[in-house]
């Protein structure tokens, strides 16, 4: 009887020891929540959510300070994916925020006076130029955040909706018309 108890507890100790060691040795570094949220956010860096960029908004969501429906560029789809990740109910975008089609900033190069204010405003360094030199937007890098539009003293920046072309065209969701079978 005593031998059996000793053997059993001996085995338990050894196995427990192995498990404990394995838990430390093979610990899986899990993606922190902030990173996962940040990966869903569109990285427009527009600040419409009220935070100075996507990362701070992700941090606020992770802390529970901000709601998930404050990102207009992400749109409903983004809210849905955040809801899925966080295990909450999706909801429509917060009041006053609307999802707009993706666009890029365009500088009217005839009007630009080279003040560099838009360059300072651009969160992703997508505007090239120098003081008293014409500026221009690199369209491939522009996230369409509109942060450069307001600072321009001569209103030479406008947003242009990206038009669909042959290379960016997507097959539509097949719409099956409901007709009465003849």
């Amino acid at each position, binding site marked *: 009887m005593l031998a059996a108890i000793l053997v059993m507890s001996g085995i338990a100790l050894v196995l427990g020891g192995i498990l404990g060691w394995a838990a430390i040795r093979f610990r899986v570094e899990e993606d922190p929540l902030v990173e996962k949220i940040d990966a869903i956010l569109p990285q427009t860096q527009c600040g419409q959510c009220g935070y100075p960029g*996507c*990362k701070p908004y992700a941090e606020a969501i992770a802390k529970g300070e901000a709601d998930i429906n404050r990102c207009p560029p992400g749109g409903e789809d983004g809210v849905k994916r955040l809801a899925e990740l966080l295990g909450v109910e999706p909801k429509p975008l917060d009041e006053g925020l609307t999802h707009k089609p993706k666009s890029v900033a365009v500088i009217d190069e005839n009007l630009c006076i080279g003040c560099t204010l838009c360059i300072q405003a651009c969160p992703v360094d997508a505007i090239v130029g120098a003081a008293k030199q014409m500026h221009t937007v690199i369209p491939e890098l522009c*996230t369409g955040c509109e942060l450069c539009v307001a600072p321009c003293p001569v209103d030479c920046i406008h947003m242009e909706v990206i038009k*669909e072309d042959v290379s960016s065209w997507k*097959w539509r969701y097949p719409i099956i018309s409901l007709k009465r079978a003849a």
Partner: protein
Amino acid sequence: MSAARGRKLYTFPGGVHPEEHKAESAGRPIAAMPLLPLYVVPLRQHIGEPARPVVQVGQQVLRGQMIGAPQGYVSVGVHAPTSGRVVAVEPRPVPHPSGLKDLCVVIEADGEDRAIDMTPLDWHRMDPSALRNRLREMGLAGLGGAVFPSFIKLNPGARRQIPILILNGAECEPWITCDDRLMRERASEILIGAAIMRHMLGAEQVLVGIEDNKPEAIACMTAAAVGSDVEVVPVPTVYPAGGGKQLTYTLTGRVTPSRGLSTDVGVQMFNVGTAYSLYRAVTFGEPLLSRIVTVTGHVASPGNFEVRLGTPVADLLAAAGGERPQATGRVVGGPMMGFELHDTAAPVTKAVNCILVKNAQLFPEPPPPMPCIRCGECARACPVELQPFELYWYAHHRDFGKTQAYHLFDCIECGCCSYVCPSHIPLVDFYRFAKSEIWAREREKQAADQARARHEFRTFRLEREKQEKAEKLAKKAAERLESGAVAAEDPEAARKKAILAAAIEKAKKAKEAVQPKNVDNLPAEVQREIAAIEARRRGGADEPEAAATARTTPNP
């Protein structure tokens, strides 16, 4: 032929037997097209990056002159189909399922059809890489439908050699007969093209796979292959026997891995039309300027035509006697995999192998789709052994992760599942939708990753600049302190004062440096007036200066 009889053929799973409708267009020899007054040549005719226009409006061009240069690796050149004048470089309708416009070079023919100097390529002795480069410039791309740049496929790469070369003459899609006619009429030219391919790939074996519903083509190719070790193999007629992976399996028994290429199992495949255009490119130095196109269906006289790339479809239809009354639409490609043509002003491109005119009898409106009953017919028909009903289920619910788990990207969009579906569900449309949605998300994700990296670097840079500035000012202040310019009782206040003084001085200097340049060439009295105003201004000098300081300080 004896070797062909001995070859063991493998049967791929699934497949269907749609009505062939080949007889309508296969009977007549390939007809030439008259020279047209206007050609519209799209710059995106191949998979990959579109060509970059290298001609200007008003420029004279010759037949065979490059009008679009390849840009990026997966890209080939585009050439003028005849001599004439470039009248526009602008978006025009193109044969694309979207119906959108794309950049085209529009050439007004001068009727002379003068060509550039074309020099044949010495393919035996040429450096393989130089030869491939020439083929890239000459615009060679696969004419079977995928229009993948041929020079890339002709590079054996790190493998050094690809043992088996297959010429694809199966032409399994109903209605289409352009490869059939080409094999009947130009068999020996195709085989010369094949010999060049074989040389470039280092292939030991050349097989030509032709569906057994084309006995004339098989006979012609076999006759042309006499005396060589090229093996012409008739394969059973079952759609999609001409699919790359399907034909590879039928002829060799080798299975192309999921999401892999046939080269992974030592096989490279080209369409017979591509072999013919390679023959022309090498033997005559002629870039890819034309292709064979089947015009069939509800037209007055169906047949095959040798069409210059850039020929508007409307002119091609006219050459086939025009559409008969009550046509209900046109399809580019065949009925299984083709797409609707929105505008007959769109031109023939390298990818267009057939224009099929529909009418209500041949192509009745499909009955309304009904719910999926999970009967499994689609899975039995699928030549890639997928489960189309599951794919449909998840694509329908936009669960794209699951569609990928069910190997959506192994789908070749052959349309067998839609063909057999008793509920008439347009299954392939759902798969195309899911695929393009996944690609779009991938593009968006890449753009977001780039934006994140750039934003993070910018934040880091601003922080660094701020720190550097503070350090510089602190150093300056310390210097002043040492020189005894400021009383040393309160070092913190002194430092602040020094910073302030330095900033004011810097602003002053900046202001002095900026001199208005628009007053140089003014008459003397205006200059005097300006001087007077400036003097008056300097009377209350301090205030505007402070304002200037505030303005030049950047907002962090």
